[in-house]
């Protein structure tokens, strides 16, 4: 069923490296060759796209477009994380509050976040505030609802242990509730990250004077096709890098959880 790779040894390492690199290399080579003598305006040769890349994404563009986008995303994402975890902890801790809020939250979560862009533009205009507000309003729900679930599911024995050892209040929140909910919270944060990137791009496509989404649409409208392709590549790269960063953080914070899960899976 599963191809078993030899582990350890130089051969093993080389073989694994081969598996990591082989398919991407084939795909890029395929694209390169297939598009090499392309005259189709919309599908320029990969060679052209790659040579255009450094010309388009110069230091100034990085500073003027990429940096503001990333900053807005970070600000919105951070606010959503703080608000989602805080509210989620409160709602998850009280059964009645949860029962009251649940239907409303389920509805708000179900609203496709991009439709909030025009709504929020009414309040916040078209500046940075609007974009950050859009990102917050889209990202907060998965974080909030997952936190509620996680907080609700705190183990009863752990909870009693904490009580009997006088671990209450802030210490209980910090050492027990949030830690035990952290796998769920991270699941929410991961969903929120992809929503955040989508909203970052869309809010800029809608109304902006700078940013990645804005620039890419400008290229498309101006029929600067290779430039547009470099923008798509850059956005893809950004998504990839953010997901790698996320995973690094998750590995660190949830190391115990993955270990625990592996142990219980092996013994079951």
């Amino acid at each position, binding site marked *: *069923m599963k191809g078993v790779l030899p582990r350890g040894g130089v051969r093993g390492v080389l073989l694994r490296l081969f598996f990591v690199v082989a398919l991407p290399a084939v795909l890029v080579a395929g694209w390169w060759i297939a598009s090499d003598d392309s005259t189709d305006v919309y599908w320029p040769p990969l060679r052209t796209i790659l040579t255009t890349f450094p010309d388009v994404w110069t230091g100034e563009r990085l500073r003027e477009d990429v940096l503001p986008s990333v900053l807005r995303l970070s600000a919105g994402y951070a606010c959503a994380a703080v608000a989602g975890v805080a509210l989620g902890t409160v709602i998850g801790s009280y059964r009645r509050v949860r029962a009251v809020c649940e239907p409303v939250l389920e509805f708000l979560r179900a609203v*496709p976040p991009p*439709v909030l862009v025009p709504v929020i533009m009414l309040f916040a205009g078209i500046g940075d505030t609007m974009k950050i507000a859009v990102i917050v309003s889209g990202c907060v729900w998965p974080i909030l609802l997952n936190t509620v679930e996680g907080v609700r599911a705190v183990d009863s024995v752990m909870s009693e242990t904490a009580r009997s050892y006088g671990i209450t209040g802030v210490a209980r929140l910090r050492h027990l509730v949030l830690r035990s909910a952290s796998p769920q919270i991270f699941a929410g944060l991961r969903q929120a990250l992809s929503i955040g990137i989508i909203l970052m791009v869309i809010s800029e496509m809608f109304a902006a004077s700078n940013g990645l989404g804005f620039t890419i649409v400008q290229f498309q409208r101006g029929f600067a096709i290779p430039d547009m392709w470099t923008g798509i590549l850059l956005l893809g790269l950004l998504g990839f890098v953010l997901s790698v960063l996320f995973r690094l953080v998750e590995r660190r914070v949830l190391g115990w959880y993955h270990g625990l899960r592996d142990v219980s899976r092996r013994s079951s």
Partner: protein
Amino acid sequence: MRGTNAVLGAAGLAVFLALGEAAPRLGLVKDEYFPPTSRIADALATELADDAFWTALGDTLTGWALGLAIAVTAGILAGVLISVTPYLREATASTIEFLRPIPSVALIPLAVLLYGTELRSVLLLVVYASFWQVLIQVMYGVQDVDPVAEETARSYGLGTWARTRHVLWPTALPYVMTGVRLAATVALILAVTAELVIGAPGLGARIAVAQTSQAVPEMYALVVVTGLLGLLINVGARTVERRALAWHQSVRGEVAV
């Protein structure tokens, strides 16, 4: 207990709607930005009486359903193929890890150039976004196949097809259902996004029109409709998931990916 929760939930909803009515009436928020609940309800009623609204709803649902169907089919086929073929999993891992996090909205300019405001634009975005949800869950599911069951099937001389049908598929099914549910939500988001940004016909485009013509209550009404649609899809997918898996000894938890 359940009854109490339902009452509390209804109360919460009532408070939410009442706040939406009171806040603009009391001047806490400007009512041209945030119309009271009753005015949104009026606008919603007008929308429901409008044929164009139903056409838009139909367009959105078409894009959603078609895109979802393609993504699910492709995701299942690719997932099973990758998992069953020796070494294919290892060979594709890095590529999948790279392609998956690429935001599908990056493809918007390309979709505009290639297909304009046609349905195919919507499909491109919807399929790209929801395909990965299904694929990943299918691969997790196949990985979860009990080696003992697999060995048993092998020792009884079941061929690849029979093993796929009787061992692999039942094990992977819960994961597939989870993948479909996640994909259904993502597909709606991307369908509405494509309409909103590109202008393909549908609810999203209608929201964009309402926005540019400053028809604020109509815009809110449409946002509510998309929310209800999302809710319906969510609840529906969960019900189907539970029904389809009622026979399964353990309805498995979601894989955090």
